């Protein structure tokens, strides 16, 4: 896997069936998916390792990720099927402002296995 934002994280794997626009689709106050059309509608992503096949929708998703990191409801880490600079910048700003990590990698779902996933291990 290629690091977009390097760092260590671990958590239960949540595989998103479709891209998720964090803005309009993810509620920082609860950490849940609120896009009613999304296959994972209602699921909590807080503290999870989230696989997302690709980014989607609003360019405000950077803000939503940084805000979720501030509140403590962000995913522990993200694995993306395709690089997405909107999520990368959200993670970098969350780290810059609050010293919180949300590492982001690009990789294949088959590399992740099941259950608890660790990112950034040597």
């Amino acid at each position, binding site marked *: 896997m290629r690091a977009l934002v390097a760092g260590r994280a671990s958590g239960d794997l949540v595989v998103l069936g479709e891209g998720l626009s964090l803005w309009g689709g993810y509620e920082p106050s609860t950490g849940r998916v*609120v896009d009613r059309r999304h296959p994972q509608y209602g699921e909590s992503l807080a503290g999870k390792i989230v696989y997302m096949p690709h980014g989607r*929708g609003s360019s405000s998703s950077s803000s939503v990720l940084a805000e979720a990191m501030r509140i403590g409801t962000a995913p522990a880490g993200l694995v993306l099927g395709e690089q997405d600079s909107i999520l990368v*910048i959200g993670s970098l700003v969350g780290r810059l402002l609050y010293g919180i990590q949300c590492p982001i990698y690009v990789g294949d779902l088959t590399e992740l296995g099941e259950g608890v996933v660790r990112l950034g291990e040597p």
Partner: protein
Amino acid sequence: MGATVDRPHRSRAATSEVRLVHVGGHRSSVREMRQSAGDTAILNGELGEGARLALELVVAAGESMGADELLDINGAHIDGCLYHGVAGLDFARRLADAGGVVVVPTTLNVASIDLLHPNLYRGDADTARRARQLMEAYVEMGCRPTWTCAPYQLADRPALGDQVAWGESNAIVFANSVLGARTNRYGDFLDICCALTGRAPAVDLHTDDGRRATMALDVEVPDSWLDEDLFYVGLGIVLGRVAGTRVATITGLDSRADEDRLKALGAAAASSGAVAMFHVEGITPESATLASAPIERRTRVDTSSIASALRGLTGDTTELGAVSVGTPHASVAELRTLASLMDGMRSVVPFYVNTSRDVVAEVPSAIAVIERFGGTVVTDTCTYITPIIGEVTGAVMTNSGKWAYYAPGNLGVEVALGSLPDCVESAVAGKVVVSGLLS
């Protein structure tokens, strides 16, 4: 942010220097990037701490995108002025307090408060206060208080070939596709960082190769469908689903695909997918030069795919609670059309028209008609991103695919989709009335 020693085969320009940059105290990625003398000067703090911090983030983002270098931009559009929480305000204040000032002409997207009609805001006072502070921080950094999601409707919009850094998904797709200006999808934070430095990663849609279509949508519908505004909304939803982030070329349209319809198409595509650019054969400015890459996949779009996309955006209630049009912000032409539909009529439900303060200033007579109709003109913001519409019983009707896509999640309302004439007729009748493709 890479070490200088591990890529011996790279040739470097004489003026370039590679530095290891730490963002927030951590090495953030694995690529190295060539830097111009100007970049080095900024990173050495010669333009101040705000610009230095901003360029570090631009470099980090560029490395994640696989950029080898940055390029100069001549304009920016900032999405980060819309309030999403304390983090956005903390970041803007960090840059502004560090003396950050934009170095290219920079417009501002919709924000959370309508500064011209502040009483429309129904949210809590704390959020309103912070949202205003966020708007002020961006103005303090030298951005123009345009407060519109449709900066391409302003007089001094970018031209073909201009390199810009735009946020706001619908504006991005319009700039690339319809204007032929060049921007990637800049998220909140990165947009202002580009504006403070005049630099952006030289990758993807900033380059010819990144702008070539790799897939095609072949539209095969009855000719009369091309006269229907909602057809373009449905096509946009289909485009977003099929293309994801890829550049598609669309065949089978003609000059009836005007700017307002392409706006609706792009906004829908950037909602259902991450579309940042499309070509329309024979219509958009780069369709002849850049649409002709090898096409990996062709998808036929017929009446059933359009109808199904539109049905997915609309409920089946006929009960009407309110109407909201103008997402993205209504153009001069759309306001004139609305006024002609509304003249002499009266709405029996709240009817919101979202547009920009610049457009309002251009068509005072249309605004007067809309207000006599009972319409509420909303500027600087939009009804689906901030609490303006009160408690409603029944659906909120809209002509916008983007509004229909996001409002159920954002506002918890049911949506009825209809054309602009449907929206006006429904507001007068007090119930959802649809015609054309949805009837």
